[in-house]
């Protein structure tokens, strides 16, 4: 039995931080003294100065997360920032600002951390907080003209039933009532009172296109050529955007001068539904964030809530969690490489190789958790099930019975033989391939300092020469017991973002090689700490928990009021925030390169739009 998250070294430092800041900004800083809350409260008028000091003097250079909370009783919105130090790792610094609900406005931090760009737009879109000084404060997940700001506590969706689950209204008198039966339109819509269709005009997308006219000052000087600029839309239905992602691009000839991502085509209201759910009900929803890596999402959420509950985890559960998460990472990176090759024009053959290996890993997931993709495997305190004793496979010959493969043998076969071989095979076929090298090398360069400024995380950050991996920087679960290196590459181009995925697969295999013997030792031991329960109560407080997911830092900013449901449930999504750097990476390149650069970032839309 051990602590869920070992004490990080820089804990003392954060006390110093408060002292240093309050000396520098007397009267503008005070520690957050609410029970269960940490960090400091900053006076909103001084926010940019304090943020600059936090970045430059205290060394918290990576702004990992921006979250927003509504406290209607007090009449305030609170914006919460979590900053981390990429050089030494350790715990971060939480600082927050408050603004009145009626005139919600705080200074934008875009000048300090450009990575807040989309996150501030999200806070405006969903909560209605204005960020003064933000150059392009438009709605981001919804559309211009949408009525209201849905993350406010007093906003109600068309299918509103009750504030919190479990709902009592679903089965009145034993009869199911479909939500459609309760609205006049028979579907999930509502209109503000007095809305008249006659004479009404949709707002359209002028605001989006307005921002595309002026080319950025980076890249080649296209004014010399004196050609026309053209705005091209890629997506949302486009085979290379990895889902329903859209980019509005200004091109000059073939050269990109501006690029604006358009989000929200898969905005499934994860956070709003999450706040109606009970704590545990959110577990299956996390599966659907990054649907390639459901088990890794499970872990990030589980450790965040466990930290708030002070729950301990048995060793076997930790081992199985690491096993599942590292296998998830491997299959995610295989698929990422496969789809990157798709984007390069090697349509489907490399993907077939990647997916063949992925299927084997999914066989283990299915046998263990009951589902190939949406595993819903972890619980607060452990896991839902242990490993099964065997993995069923289809009969291969006529008259055969179904095959039954011993699970441990299957895992060993994967970890010691099959996956290392598959990794070497991908490496051998692809890494020195002339087309691949020519299309990737030097394309979409993101220097390390820019990557940090843009809050990029995961392989994107590490391919730019910043060895920041939360498994080492702020260790969780039992990662500090394993021997592995943080993969890092230094050029920051698409080629390095490709290579780093192979490196990470190899490091994951190294971890797995240490996990497997310990799994055998702990066979039959308890895999669930604490009580099994559907309804957990989480002590009141506020916590930002995060984990190193295959695509970057997946964080959960959770606020509990002590009840059975999260008061605030915010997802810090790596794919979404990594895209902030997309424009800078693309400008100056050709149209065909956008696809490659996007492929090398590796996004998944369930997580981008949530």
């Amino acid at each position, binding site marked *: 039995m051990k602590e869920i998250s070992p004490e990080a070294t820089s804990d003392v430092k954060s006390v110093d931080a408060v002292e240093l800041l309050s000396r520098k900004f007397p009267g503008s800083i005070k520690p957050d003294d609410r029970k269960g809350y940490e960090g400091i409260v900053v006076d909103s008028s001084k926010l940019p100065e304090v943020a600059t000091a936090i970045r430059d003097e205290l060394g918290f250079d990576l702004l990992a997360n921006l979250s927003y909370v509504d406290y209607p009783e007090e009449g305030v919105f609170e914006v919460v920032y979590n900053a981390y130090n990429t050089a030494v790792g350790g715990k971060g610094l939480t600082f927050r600002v408050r603004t009145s609900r009626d005139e919600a406005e705080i200074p934008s931090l875009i000048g300090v951390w450009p990575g807040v760009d989309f996150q501030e737009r999200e806070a405006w879109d969903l909560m209605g907080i204005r960020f003064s000084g933000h150059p392009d404060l438009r709605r981001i*997940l*919804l*559309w211009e*003209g*949408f*009525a*209201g700001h849905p993350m406010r506590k*007093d*906003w*109600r*969706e*068309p*299918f*509103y*039933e009750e504030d919190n689950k479990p709902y009592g209204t679903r089965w009145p008198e034993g009869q199911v009532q479909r*939500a*459609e039966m309760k609205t*006049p*339109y028979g*579907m*999930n*819509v*509502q*209109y*503000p*009172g*007095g*809305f*008249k*269709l*006659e004479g009404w005009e*949709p707002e359209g997308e002028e605001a989006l296109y307005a921002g595309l006219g002026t080319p950025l000052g980076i890249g080649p000087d296209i004014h010399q050529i004196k050609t026309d600029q053209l705005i091209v839309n890629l997506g949302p*239905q486009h*085979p290379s955007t990895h*889902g*329903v992602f859209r980019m509005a691009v200004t091109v000059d000839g073939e050269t990109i001068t501006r690029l604006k991502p358009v989000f*929200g*085509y*898969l*905005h*499934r*209201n*994860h956070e709003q*539904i999450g706040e*109606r759910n009970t704590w545990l009900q959110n577990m*299956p929803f996390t599966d*659907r964030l990054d*649907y390639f890596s459901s088990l890794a999402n499970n872990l990030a959420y589980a450790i965040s809530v466990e930290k708030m509950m002070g729950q301990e985890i048995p060793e076997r559960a930790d081992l199985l969690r690491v096993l599942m998460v590292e296998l998830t990472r491997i299959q995610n990176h295989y698929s990422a490489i496969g789809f990157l090759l798709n984007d390069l024009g090697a349509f489907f053959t490399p*993907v*077939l190789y990647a*997916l*063949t290996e*992925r*299927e084997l890993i*999914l066989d283990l997931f299915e046998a263990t958790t009951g589902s*190939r*993709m*949406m595993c819903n495997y972890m619980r607060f305190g452990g896991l839902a099930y242990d490993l099964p004793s065997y993995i069923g496979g289809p009969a291969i010959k006529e008259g055969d019975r179904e095959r039954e493969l011993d699970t441990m043998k299957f895992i060993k076969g994967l970890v010691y033989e099959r996956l290392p071989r598959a990794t070497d095979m991908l490496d051998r076929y692809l890494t020195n391939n002339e087309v691949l090298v020519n299309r990737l090398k030097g394309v979409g360069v993101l220097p390390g300092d820019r990557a940090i400024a843009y809050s990029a995380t995961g392989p994107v950050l590490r391919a730019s020469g910043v060895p920041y991996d939360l498994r080492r920087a702020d260790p969780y679960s039992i990662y500090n017991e394993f021997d592995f290196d943080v993969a890092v590459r230094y050029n920051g181009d698409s080629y390095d973002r490709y290579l780093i995925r192979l490196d990470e697969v190899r490091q994951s295999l190294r971890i797995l090689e240490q996990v497997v013997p310990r799994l055998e030792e702990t066979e039959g031991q308890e895999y669930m700490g604490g009580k099994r329960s559907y309804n957990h109560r989480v002590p009141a407080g506020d916590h930002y928990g995060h984990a190193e997911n295959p695509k970057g830092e997946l964080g959960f900013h959770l606020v509990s009021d002590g009840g059975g449901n999260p008061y605030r449930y915010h997802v810090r999504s790596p794919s979404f925030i990594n895209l902030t750097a997309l424009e800078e990476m693309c400008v100056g390149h050709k149209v065909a390169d956008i696809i490659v650069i996007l492929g090398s970032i590796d996004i998944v*839309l369930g997580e981008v*739009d949530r």
Partner: protein
Amino acid sequence: MTMTPDDYSDLNNPDIPIPDELKSNIAITTLDRIYNWSRARSVWPLLFGLACCAIEMIATAASRYDPARFGMEVMRPSPRQCDLMIVSGTVTKKMVPQIVRLYNQMAEPRYVLAMGACASGGGPFKEGYNVVDGIDKFIPVDVYVPGCPPTPQALLHGFITLHKKIEGQSIMSVPWYKKGQSEAIPVPVLGPDLIDPRQGELIQAASEGEYSAQFETDENA
């Protein structure tokens, strides 16, 4: 490839006997059967994915499940070249205008397969403010495949079900050989909420107060 009699035995009209020695050379059939037989075996899906279910659709398209066995491995990104739209995932209000437009652009005969709980009825995200509770609110669906996500086997079963449906159609009654043009489905508009142009009157009535009592409580604050 040479065909064995088994390959097209389902084409033969059983009422007309064919001498044994000619069985591998001759098939006697009806126009409907050969028409549907060939259509059902070359259904090209539209290459577009919406959400998590799309990943299972890709897994289905890969070697292990191999839809080439059903003549369905050719996925086209252009709606003009496709017969089948697989709605593979959550349909959001922001996305549904594009989906309706894609459907309108597909040439007849065209089919729609709603893959998974989301496309069929909203799924786990049904109560979300940006989620359409089922694509059948906008376009006609031929096959629903349950699951979240449906396994590849389930999707294959959906394909086979679609083939059965195709084989049951008759050239005499299919809508695309009828006189006149089929009407395009009106594309929904993004307003204060999603607006289905077909519900214009209903929305007007609501704004004139007929439903306002109910809507007082659900009002955006």
